[in-house]
């Protein structure tokens, strides 16, 4: 299968049975979930565990990250200060740095340059961004344009906590292109190859019948 057809939703709050079945119908091959509920069905996408760290100081982040097995979890950081964001950019245990409506100020040109230098992707959640005010969305739009110029990898997740908050991959690409002026190819990479490269190194909580290619 072409690597641009392996759709991954990298940010799901709770993976319950209904959500997982619908995700499979929508064409997702892997889901990264914060919480996995016991599933009866055997035909599911590959499920990976996600750990979200929120930190305001480097000391606190070091303490939090020491207790996590980063080889089995998809580790995402929400930095609350510039120094945490800078430090996290070069730490290999952290997979992505997340932009939310509360920490937009952390992401400036230097931060994106650092992330570009160390190859650290930026993650956004569509639910978090679409639920905020217009003012915040304007700021996100400008940050994403800056990100594209800095050539930082982008990962987009739905942030779904129930089945009706999932997006069809095609719809997700169209939302990113129409709302944030992201080129279609970058938008497609944000839900396919960029997250796949990260989860390829991780151990799934629940492997699927058709495993992802590890190359």
């Amino acid at each position, binding site marked *: 299968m072409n690597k641009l057809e392996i759709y991954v939703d990298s940010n799901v709050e709770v993976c319950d049975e209904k959500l997982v079945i619908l995700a499979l119908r929508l064409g997702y091959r892997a889901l990264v979930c914060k919480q996995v509920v016991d599933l009866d069905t055997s035909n599911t996408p590959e499920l990976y565990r996600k750990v979200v760290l929120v930190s305001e100081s480097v000391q606190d982040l070091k303490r939090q990250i020491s207790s996590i097995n980063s080889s089995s979890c998809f580790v995402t950081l929400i930095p609350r200060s510039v120094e945490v964001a800078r430090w996290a950019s070069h730490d290999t245990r952290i997979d992505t740095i997340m932009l939310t409506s509360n920490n937009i100020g952390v992401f400036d040109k230097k931060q994106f340059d650092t992330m570009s230098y160390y190859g650290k992707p930026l993650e956004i959640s569509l639910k978090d961004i679409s639920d905020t005010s217009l003012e915040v969305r304007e700021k996100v739009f400008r940050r994403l344009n800056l990100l594209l110029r800095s050539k930082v990898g982008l990962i987009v997740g739905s942030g779904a906590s*129930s089945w*009706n908050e999932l997006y*069809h991959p*095609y*719809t997700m690409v169209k*939302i990113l*292109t*129409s*709302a944030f002026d992201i080129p279609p190819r970058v938008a497609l990479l944000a839900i396919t190859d960029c997250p796949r490269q990260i989860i390829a190194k991780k151990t799934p909580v629940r492997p699927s019948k058709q495993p992802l290619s590890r190359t």
Partner: protein
Amino acid sequence: MIQLVNIVLTVVSLALLLAALYLFRKAYFSYKAIREKISAEKRVKKLRKRYVVFAAVCEEKVGHNDVASALRDTFVKLYGELTTQKGSPRVLIFDEEKQRGIARISHLHVDLLVASLGFIKRVGSTKCILIPLKVTGTIKKARKYLDTLKL
């Protein structure tokens, strides 16, 4: 002698005038050609229609009017009244048995319609998502896909 100089100067000035007129005419026509070329590129000859076949996955079965109003409300909220007026999105057909439908929009606004389908989380008071299946150029083909496409 003075008369000869006068005649020569008159001839030279006439020649310069003719050359200037010729150059002006040439420049004017090339400017006009370029302007027409640019405006022709910008101008869309005819607004063509596109038909989006979509499926509704809902808790309970939903009706045509609910889906149409949900789609229209979302489109207006996201892209404003002006774009809605230009694109004129409509739900033409909604099969309540199969929970599938066909929406129509102008070819310039197809991407916006598909994006706004993604933002619909509820139809009426029912939890629901609308999934785009296929974009076609004729309603005949859209009807064909309405029955045959699998989700």
